């Protein structure tokens, strides 16, 4: 029915009620009343919806296409690539000294793990052995990084599942960890501190007290999260029995890390294939049996405590010595020497402009990052830049677990599952 809007609009209303209302302006369509349930075969059983890439709980730019049967998920397809940065291509343009800056931005929640795996791969191709102090310093930093990453998980996991205060509590403790990391490495994130040959600088004075203080603060925080959540009936309802996976499924889908450990399979590369000085420190591999969201939350919570244990041992037993290998071809000279020695100046110049050459070869080195097995496949052709830098990001493979985990789950559980997989899209898309 069309209404003519004209200047005598005040009269319009009156005219409608007295004159126009009796005229039937209609179309020729017939209105019919029907009832009863909509027949299934006409509607189709399922609906496909899209979650992300911009969505508050998709942990970065992950897009999930979900096929729903009313509220139940029939199948889910993760669509990735929204953060593809071409890091592997950029890595081929950078020297081996610069390579750390590139890889560190892949898993940006625990950047030192990426740097470590890249440095270990380069050192393997160079057949270089770093001194013990460098090993222990690396271990200290990687464990601090793991603590930061797991605290981030506690914060975001809590918020995704509705315990919004967890966001503030998790970040409160993470700030303390980042403060000590900043004191040691100079940056809060994306540190570029672990480099081929050792580390960029030595530990600052007074680091032991700073690190031990942080351990205490984080321990108290973990106790608080445990008291808040682990026996909270709402939390248990939302996480126990949700997103269940099995060991065989994980092995088939190349899933590692806390997800694999939640299924009853205690595989941790720090114990099974130790690197750095992990075979000389005392710590446990945390694993559980049920393979659900609650288990993964619990594993990451306890892994913070294990990291604190390792960090305390690092503080006690940090060896003296060099923080980097004294090989002139790989390590830049100390800054003071540059003023005195022409040779030192030239070495410094060549190292930071051309970079050092790595003999031709290929290697694959893997370590245990907070998300699972992170590996670096490095191919060199004898020049100063790699032929191929490929990082095996654990989250890339862990995302494949989402489809089986979400079978038969409700949409609300989908958020819990994504959160418990703890993907970092930087290392998924690289």
């Amino acid at each position, binding site marked *: 029915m069309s209404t003519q809007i004209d200047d005598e609009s005040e009269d319009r209303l009156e005219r409608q009620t007295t004159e126009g209302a009796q005229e039937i302006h209609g179309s020729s369509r017939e209105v019919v009343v029907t009832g009863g349930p909509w027949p299934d075969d006409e509607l189709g059983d399922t609906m496909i919806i899209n979650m992300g890439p911009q969505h508050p709980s998709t942990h970065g730019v992950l897009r999930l296409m979900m096929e729903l049967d009313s509220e139940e998920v029939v199948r889910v397809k993760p669509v*990735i*690539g929204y953060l*593809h940065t*071409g890091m*592997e*291509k*950029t890595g*081929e*343009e950078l020297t081996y000294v610069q390579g750390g800056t590139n890889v560190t931005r892949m898993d940006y929640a625990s950047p030192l793990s990426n740097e470590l795996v890249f440095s270990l791969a380069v050192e*393997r*191709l160079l*057949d270089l052995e770093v001194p013990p102090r460098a090993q222990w310093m690396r271990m200290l930093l990687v464990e601090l990084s793991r603590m930061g990453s797991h605290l981030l998980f506690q914060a975001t996991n809590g918020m995704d599942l509705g315990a919004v205060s967890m966001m503030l509590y998790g970040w409160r403790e993470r700030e303390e960890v980042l403060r000590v990391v900043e004191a040691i490495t100079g940056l809060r994130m994306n540190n570029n501190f672990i480099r081929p040959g050792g580390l960029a600088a030595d530990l600052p004075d007074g680091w032991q007290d700073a690190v031990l203080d942080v351990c205490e603060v984080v321990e108290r925080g973990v106790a608080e999260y445990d008291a808040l959540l682990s026996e909270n009936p709402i939390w248990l309802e939302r996480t126990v029995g949700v997103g269940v996976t099995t060991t065989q499924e994980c*092995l*088939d*889908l*190349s*899933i*590692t890390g806390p997800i694999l450990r939640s299924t009853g*399979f*205690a*595989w941790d590369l720090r*114990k*099974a*294939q*130790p690197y750095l000085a992990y075979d000389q420190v005392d710590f*446990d*591999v*945390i*694993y*559980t*049996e049920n393979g659900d969201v609650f288990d993964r939350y*619990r594993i990451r919570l*306890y892994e913070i405590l294990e990291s604190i244990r390792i960090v305390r041992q690092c503080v006690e037993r940090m060896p003296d010595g060099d923080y980097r290998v004294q090989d002139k071809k790989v390590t830049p000279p100390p800054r003071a020497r540059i003023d005195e020695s022409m040779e030192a100046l030239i070495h410094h110049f060549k190292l930071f402009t051309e970079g050092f050459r790595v003999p*031709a*070869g*290929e*290697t*694959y080195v*893997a370590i245990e990052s907070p998300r699972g*097995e992170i*590996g670096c*496949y490095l*191919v060199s*052709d*004898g*020049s100063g830049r790699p*032929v*191929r830098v*490929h990082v*095996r990001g654990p989250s*890339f*493979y862990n*995302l*494949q677990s989402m489809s089986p985990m979400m079978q038969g789950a409700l949409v609300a559980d989908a958020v819990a599952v994504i959160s418990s997989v703890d993907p970092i899209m930087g290392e998924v*898309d*690289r």
Partner: protein
Amino acid sequence: MSDDARENLPEVDAAPDLDPKPDDEVAAAVLERFAGSVFHSSHGQPVVYVGREVLAEVAAMLHDEQQFTMLVDVTAVDHLLDGERHCPAGVVPERFEVVANFLSHPRNRRLRVVCEVPADDPEVPSLTGTYPGADFAEREVYDLLGIRFRGHPDLTRILMPDDWVGHPLRKDAAPSRVPVTFKGDPSPR
């Protein structure tokens, strides 16, 4: 979570077998079954170079008979612009190499399998039949390097937009740099 749960670590070999003896038994088994394969020790890691047609069968053998429970990674390398190509004797180098890393949890050992792939026919069999976890990795290799995996259920682009043309990680694809400009220069945009 009970206390004794912490003690139940999986059975692993006493010493992780990362330094293979020249007669690394898994490599020996592969060499015996697949004629023309070559064993190489790369900085202490066992690597087997096999023909690309048998890649899926090697994977099946490793999975079914040698207890290699997990395929850790599938990737590929473009050797077009290599300065110095390291290739063991007995292997015919091609432009591309497809590399698969395997891990055996019960035996706590790793094995790398490499196959050479020529540029004019970049195709290898897919490993998704034995190891479903190869799904995303093979799609990534196809997307970025253009190597097809025969038998993969859904070989589509995964990281680049669907309508992207070309394979960016190939050496003949430029990194596409925007030139650096200084104050006063005309903008490159």
